[in-house]
Every structure is written in C-alpha cells, then in structure tokens.
C-alpha cells in the first residue's frame, strides 16, 4: 500500500496531520507509543477536538504538537507550560495538554513546572522520560540515573536525578501517575482520567530511546528495553511518591496522587464574580 493509503485508512487518521508524516522519530522510539495512548484516550472520551490544544517544548518529543491534528503550538525550549498557562486562563473552554521531554520540562523548564503545579492550573502535562537529551545527541538530563553514560558524562553521571512523581506531588499536582511505554492500556486510562479532572495533572512516561540512551548504556534493542520494563516495573497505586525512586532493578509505576483541589481557573472565576458584584453594588448606591 502507498504511504498515503495506509495513513488514510488508519482508524486514527483524523487525529494526525497526515501531511507532516513521516515523523522524525527513530524506529523503536517510545514517543509513538505515547502519542498512540494519547489519541486512544481522546477517542474513547469522544472529546471535541476543536477544543483541545497540544503544546510542546523543544526536543524529539517536542515535535508531538506538530503531528496531532488539533490546535497546537511548538514553543521555545522549556516554556511549554508557561505558554499553556496563558492559553488555559485566556480561554477556560479549552483542554490544554503539554507533551514534552524530561530535559525540556525539568531542566530549562523546571521552574514553570513547579509553579504551574503549585497554582493548580488546569493543564495536563505528559512527560516522555528517556533519561537524556535525545534531540541534541544524548547529553545528560535531570533524570539521568547516577553512573549512566551520556555524551557529557563520559565517566558516568555524578548528578542525582529527580524523582519526577515526587517533585510533582510535592509541588501541588492533583493527579500524578507513572507508566512505562509497556503499560499502554493503563497509560491511556491515566490520560483519560487526567483529561476528566480539573487541575494540574502529571503523567510520567518512561520511554525507550534505542538510538541513543539505551545504546550508550548497553540496554539492548527497543524490544530488550520493553522486556526490561516488564521485568522491573512494579504496579502499585497510592504508593508514596517520595519512595518511588527509579533504580536499575525497579520502576514503581501506578497512580501516586489522585485528589481534588480548586483549580487556579476556578478561584479566578470566583474572585472575578465577587469583584464584579461588589462593583455593581457600589455603582447602584
């Protein structure tokens, strides 16, 4: 079948910008699985696609915004969440989703992440965590495990990595989950849940990077990495996120946080109504 036919006949054809294919991602990259789970979630929720906005930063996964057929914006490196905050507050009708990488969201963009979580802005952040800066050729990122090899840790990493789910929970997120690209159904369900909740949600997706990180660290092929995910993931809901540190032998996955708290948008609307009513009262005096 010709490329165009394959795309047009695909049940998810309407969710992708077909003129942007082929995508830039390597064979075996986890980014495709993440996008697939996201699209599945949109499909199962029958969300009005005209009201969804996908925002990305810069990186391999940063190209996600360009591929998904909704209003989308590819911002500067690290600024996706700040941009998304402006979008959501300017038009509360929109479902605003940030899809970006561990480097983008937690190195250069770390400050925006913690503050958006603290404000509980109603945006959904999905992070493809491949433990490296893929786009620039495999330097270490804030999630690179100790002792790992990257092009800028040629003697092994001596930096302690972030535990992203702990960071998110401590910063104020109302929904926090972690999955690997192996647990696609659960990942999709988490995305669905986050889309239905009002507030800041964070989903970490542990994602293979067979071309760079996994190769440098001798983790084998993409299939080998999926096998590894199978061996070392441990599903447990409600686990203490501060203890969910990723090690060589264990990746705790599951929902770490699922609470309710008024979103920034809600508090803003309530305040606006109060201010306007007071103003009306003063005017009619």
């Amino acid at each position: 079948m010709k490329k165009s036919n394959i795309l047009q006949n695909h049940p998810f054809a309407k969710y992708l910008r077909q003129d942007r294919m082929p995508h830039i991602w390597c064979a075996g990259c986890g980014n495709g699985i993440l996008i697939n789970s996201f699209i599945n979630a949109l499909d199962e929720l029958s969300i009005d696609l005209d009201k969804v906005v996908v925002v990305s930063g810069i990186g391999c996964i940063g190209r996600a915004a360009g591929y998904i057929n909704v209003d989308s914006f590819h911002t500067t490196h690290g600024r996706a969440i700040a941009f998304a905050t402006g979008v959501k507050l300017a038009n509360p009708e929109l479902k605003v989703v940030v899809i970006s990488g561990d480097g983008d969201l937690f190195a250069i963009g770390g400050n925006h992440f913690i503050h958006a979580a603290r404000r509980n802005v109603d945006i959904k952040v999905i992070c493809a965590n491949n433990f490296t800066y893929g786009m620039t050729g495999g330097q270490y990122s804030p999630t690179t495990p100790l002792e790992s090899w990257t092009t800028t840790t040629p003697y092994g990493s001596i930096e302690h990595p972030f535990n992203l789910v702990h960071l998110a929970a401590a910063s104020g997120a109302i929904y926090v989950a972690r999955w690997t690209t192996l647990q696609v159904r659960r990942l999709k369900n988490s995305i669905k849940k986050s889309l239905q909740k009002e507030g800041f949600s964070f989903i970490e997706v542990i994602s293979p990077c067979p071309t760079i990180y996994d190769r440098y660290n001798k983790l084998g092929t993409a299939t080998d990495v999926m096998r590894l995910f199978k061996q070392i993931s441990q599903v447990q809901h409600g686990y203490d996120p501060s203890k969910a540190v990723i090690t060589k032998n264990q990746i705790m996955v599951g929902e770490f946080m699922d609470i309710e708290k008024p979103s920034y948008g809600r508090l803003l609307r309530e305040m606006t109504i109060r201010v306007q009513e007071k103003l009306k009262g003063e005017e009619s005096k």
Partner: protein
Amino acid sequence: MQKNRAVLQGTHFLSGDLACAEGALAAGCEFFGGYPITPATEIAERMAKRLPEIGGVYLQMEDEIASIAAVIGASFAGKKAMTATSGPGFSLMQENIGLAVMTEAPLVIVNIMRGGPSTGQPTMPSQQDVMQARWGSHGDYEIIALAPSSVQEMFDLTIESFNLAETYRVPVMLLADATIGHMWERVKIPPQEEIPLSWRKKPEVAPAKYKPFKPDENLVPPMACFGEGYRFHATGLTHNEEGAPATVSSEAQDRLVRRLCNKIRRNTKEIMKIEEIMLDDAEIVVLAYGITSRAALSAVRMVRKEGIKAGLLRLVTIWPFPTELVTQIAKKSRAIVVPEMNCGQLVREVERAAKTTPVLLLSKLGEEPHRPSEISSALRKAIK
C-alpha cells in the same frame, strides 16, 4: 466584538504607569502576564486591580520568561494581551520575543527603561534599551517600538501599540523611561466610541482551506485562534505557509524571514508617527524621542528667540526608523543634535541616514534627563 470595558472616562491625574494600564484597558486588553520590577510595577498593580473588574485575567508569573510565554499563549487563545517590565526583565524576555515574531503573535511589551547594565539603577531613567528592543532576540527581524514623552502619551500610545500589534501581527514595544513611568500629569480620556481600535484580521476561508501563515496583500496572514475549529499548528521553527517545519529549506527560510521583515519595512509609512516642529526653515535640528524631546522642544524655542533657526524632529515611532525622512531633513540642515540617555544608540541610525551632515551626540547617564540649557548650548555651538 467590542464589549463595554469599563474604560475610564474624562480627565484624570495619573502617573505614566497608571495611564499605561488604563490605555491598555481602553485598547481592549484582557490579559496581563508579568513579574514585578521597578519602575514598571505600578502597571502590574493597576492591572491586578482593574482586570478582574472587566472580567479579564491578571497573572503574576514566576519570571519574565514565563510572563511573555503566557502572553503569547493568551494572544493565540484570542485575547489582546500584554506584559510590562524593565531592563532585567526585558533581557529575560528576549528569546520569546523572537518566538512572538516568528509565530506572528500580536501583543504589547512595555519597557519602562531604567539605568543598566545588569541591575543598574532601578529607580533612575535611561534610554539604554533602544538597541536591545531592536535586535535583542537572535535572528533577523524588524520590530515596532514607540517612545512616549508624556503621561498622556502613555495612555494614547499604549492604545496605538495594541492597534499596531493587531494590524501587523507583531509584538509591539512601548519604550518609556523611569521618569515618564513615575511622573504625574493630567490625562484626557476621550469618549470610548472615539477611540479607534484595531483587531486582528480573521480568516475568511473554511478550516480545511486555512493556511495559518499565508499572508494577505499587506504581508500579514489572517489569524485564527485556538478553539475556533481551524486546528492549526504554529512553531518557532522556520515554517511554510501551512505552519509545517521547514528546517533545511533555504527557500522557506528566505521567504519567511523576508516577509516578516517586509511586513514592517513595506508598511513603514503607515506605522511611522513623527512630529516635525519648526523644521521648515531649520538650519539646525534636534532629533529626540521620549522624555528628552520635552527639553529639546524648550531648547529649540529658546534659541529661536536668539535668532537661531532650530527645529525639532521628534520620533514617536523609533522602530522602524524613518531613514528616508531623516536623510531629507539632514540634506537641508547644517547639523543634527541627538540627545540620548545612553552612550549613543539611536544616534547610529541618525548617522547612517544623515550621510555627510554632521551628527552630534549629547549623551547623558544617571538621574536626570537632559535640561533645556544643555541642549540649547549644544545648538549654539553646533551653529557656529
């Protein structure tokens, strides 16, 4: 489209910063994203109070990088949006100013200039960011920047900034200084229906046919916003008319970057606002902008009384720079005096345009703007 926005009416005694905030509301601004910094803080404070009254959004972000990012987001979500800052914050905004240029986001950036470099002199005025406004972000682009010289103009030119931003889909900079920001003067606000307002051009084609970066005759593309059903993509990468990245095509780079420049260059005459005072028979000319143009006007009047044929060219728009006009004026004059509160920034443009006519920089740093006497003695010297 235009709703009742609770615009102030009548005559008011306001500071420059407050007048700027009220001007923004009169222009239809519904979103402010910022971070406090002297001497621009009062704009944020006024907006924090006033925006909820009209149902708008005041958002204090974690820094200026986030502020401008949120403002670009709000603009793409369909709102007229702005931020206000000063030197250090303006520096932090530079990367995303490039993003706003590249994705053609209409928005307004107010910079109440203070003494730099670095933290410099927070409460002292300067005109030290004139070149940063022009070239501060990487890459090649054109920008619009206006320089108010009174509190009234802080009101009027804030509205003008929004109108230009919406018309040309560009970030527009209002470059004031600490003196104007903090000075109190009378401001006359015209009735709301007498304030002309511009709004971004909307697409006239069906979503399937919409190309988000396909320009009209004036080189500006009609703008769909998020949630309107057009499902478009925008990126800071070089892109084609569809909005798709074109990162290795020379043709795409040439086409896009030239259009972004030309939409300002070719419309310079429409954008440009200048004041020509006593220039008809002038043998010597002061070219000034912002606060210094007030002392310049007094100086010109002073030396006229002594029989010196002096005139004032006041730039309200400093970017794009009116090169042709300055060349014409220079041809007829013996010298051009340029008072600036920096070590010589806009003077370089004047020199370029003046060709063989001598250009004299009157540079001043620190607490006070130029005094009329400083400019008048420069005029006397220059005519000798």
